[in-house]
């Protein structure tokens, strides 16, 4: 039992940052924009959150700082692809390179510093019992991520604003002709995506390992991108996908450490296979989605395409 609880806690730790960044990217893609700069925005968020916490001494302000910095980085991307209609793929990649460089530069003066930690959300007595700990023992950011899963799902499915956002992603020209501001909606979505990626990045530098190191997100931004596809652009499935990734890494580590007897076969599987799994699965899922409906009921039809109104 204790083993299971600890396993869940580890998996939650692995899943949370990619879930946060994935939720942001999900909304961005639903609005018809493909932002490949997730890794860069996460790094910007990681250093901004860390720096803000060091400077203010308050982790809450740190998270807000991370969100703002992520949103700003995303808005830069938005300015180029939305206002100036530049190519989304190239601009997104440039954002990642930019964010990596900027975070390294800013981080120079933060290497080796230590930050104050979040207190627990719930009374610490609640988290003492191991069974309750699995429910109440996490950082506030984890609960925020979970709430956001439902919030994003609900927003996209049941709100008018969500409907408009989907309409913009599905058919920008007709949304435009009805009178919606395609560019405005997309700006909002892109900024939201950046804020979420920023918080996801801050989870690394403030919660998992409270420190700053260059490139400390170690490629998780790309996993988050894969996750959105894996989830078929649905918030609920994104949660499943994030947990799936967490379980996969947890299984790899356990297999290597000889932890689980039923996994003993797995120690003969090269670890690279585990590491490649999320990406392979994503390609498979993408193919299945595309096979099921060629028009792509879930995949936003305008994904990655510039908005070019006739006028």
């Amino acid at each position, binding site marked *: 039992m204790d*083993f299971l609880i*600890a*396993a869940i*806690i*580890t998996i939650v*730790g*692995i899943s949370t*940052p990619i879930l946060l960044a994935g939720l942001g990217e999900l909304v961005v893609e639903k609005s018809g924009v493909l932002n490949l700069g997730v*890794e860069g925005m996460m790094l910007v968020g990681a250093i901004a959150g860390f720096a803000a916490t060091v400077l203010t001494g308050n982790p809450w302000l740190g998270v807000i700082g991370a969100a703002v910095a992520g949103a700003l980085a995303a808005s830069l991307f938005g300015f180029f692809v939305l206002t100036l209609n530049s190519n989304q793929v190239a601009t997104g990649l440039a954002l*990642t*390179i930019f964010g*990596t460089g900027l975070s390294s530069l800013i981080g*120079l003066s933060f*290497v*080796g510093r*230590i930050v104050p930690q979040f207190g627990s959300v719930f009374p610490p007595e609640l988290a003492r019992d191991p069974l309750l700990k699995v429910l109440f023992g996490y950082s506030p950011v984890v609960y925020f991520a979970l709430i956001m899963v439902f919030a994003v799902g609900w927003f996209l499915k049941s709100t008018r604003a969500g409907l408009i956002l989907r309409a913009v992603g599905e058919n920008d020209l007709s949304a435009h002709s009805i009178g919606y501001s395609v560019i405005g909606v997309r700006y909002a979505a892109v900024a939201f995506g950046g804020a979420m990626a920023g918080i996801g990045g801050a989870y*690394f530098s403030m919660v*998992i*390992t*409270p*420190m700053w*190191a*260059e*490139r*400390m*997100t*170690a*490629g*998780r931004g*790309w996993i988050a991108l894969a996750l959105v596809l894996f989830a078929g652009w649905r918030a609920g499935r994104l949660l499943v996908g994030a947990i799936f990734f967490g379980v996969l*890494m*947890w299984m790899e*580590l*356990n*297999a*290597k*450490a*000889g*932890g689980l007897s039923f996994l003993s076969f797995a*120690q*003969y599987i090269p*670890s*690279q296979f585990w*590491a490649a799994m999320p990406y392979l699965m994503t390609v498979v899922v993408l193919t299945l989605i595309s096979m099921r409906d060629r028009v792509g009921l879930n995949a936003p039809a305008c994904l990655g395409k510039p908005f070019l109104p006739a006028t």
Partner: protein
Amino acid sequence: MANLNRRHFIAAAGAAAAAVPLAGGTAFAQEKIKIGFIFLGPIGDYGWTWAHNKGREAVDAALGDKVETIYVENVAEDASAIPLIRDLAQQGCKLIFTTSYGYMDQTITVAAEFPDVKFEHCTGFKRADNVSTYNSKFHEGRAVLGTISGKLSKSGTLGYLGSYKVPEVVLGVNSFLLSAQKQNPDAKLKLVFIDSWFDPPKEAAATETLINLGCDIVTTHTDSPAALQILEQKGLYGFGQGADMSSFAPNAHLTAIEDIWGPYYVERVQAIVDGTWASADTWDGMKEGTVVISPYNKAVPADVVALADAVQAGYKDGTYDIFTGPIYDQDGNLKVEEGKVMTMAELAVIDWFVKGVESAA
């Protein structure tokens, strides 16, 4: 963006500029002998490169009136290192330290182009008339950590977070566990390779996994303090790697293996100044002061401190070697007979784990 697997926080490369005079260089710089350093990570990494840079500073302090040191940090372990090493040679360096295994062939290549320049390659095994190799017996430090762990571990199950199955790490694992077994014959070790020198989130998850599998002490052979931070949160113990990392985990940090390169660097630079430098293969350890154990945490009781100090003393006077038989491998085969001591050559290429290492790999 694809650099997931390199030692330290590295990326593409670093270089020295000969075209423009170095900022802050003194007018007398030309008269001093130039000494170059190629570093793997940033000098602020609190680990491998940080330690090498301390060694460089020791040279400055000891011989600053005769020599001038130049360094390049963040140099990738691929062909892009060649122009950077060559750069230092072209700038007039008389001695160049290349401080990571992955610069081996690059160092040999450039050394062939500059027969008058001397090179020192860290942890490698290829030498030439103008190329020395040097290494440090990190495993002697692991023996101290293992001794402490064997005593302090309640579960008798120790965790080891490894990067790759290279001789340095295998030696560390074996030395650590053999030492622990001297204190607790039933001690076992769970080992996880994370296939990276630096991946803080994965290091953290791996540490949690090891803890969950019953390890109450986890030692790391990867470069970030991530594991220590997790151990601190859980109220368990671990050790610093390469440098004193107690600031990251004041309670969990029992002690650390510090890499001290200063004495060796000063000695070799002095040899250049004196004109007595000759190619050599040096593998120093505690005796020479290359491997140093940080101050112990107060959580280490006096009797355990005494045991740990005894191991240190044994290494310093040459009366102790953990790789003394009988040693059995993972499958129980006798690898080193009773009373025999493994030779340096055997240690340098070791690829098997001792009995009690429970993981695959």
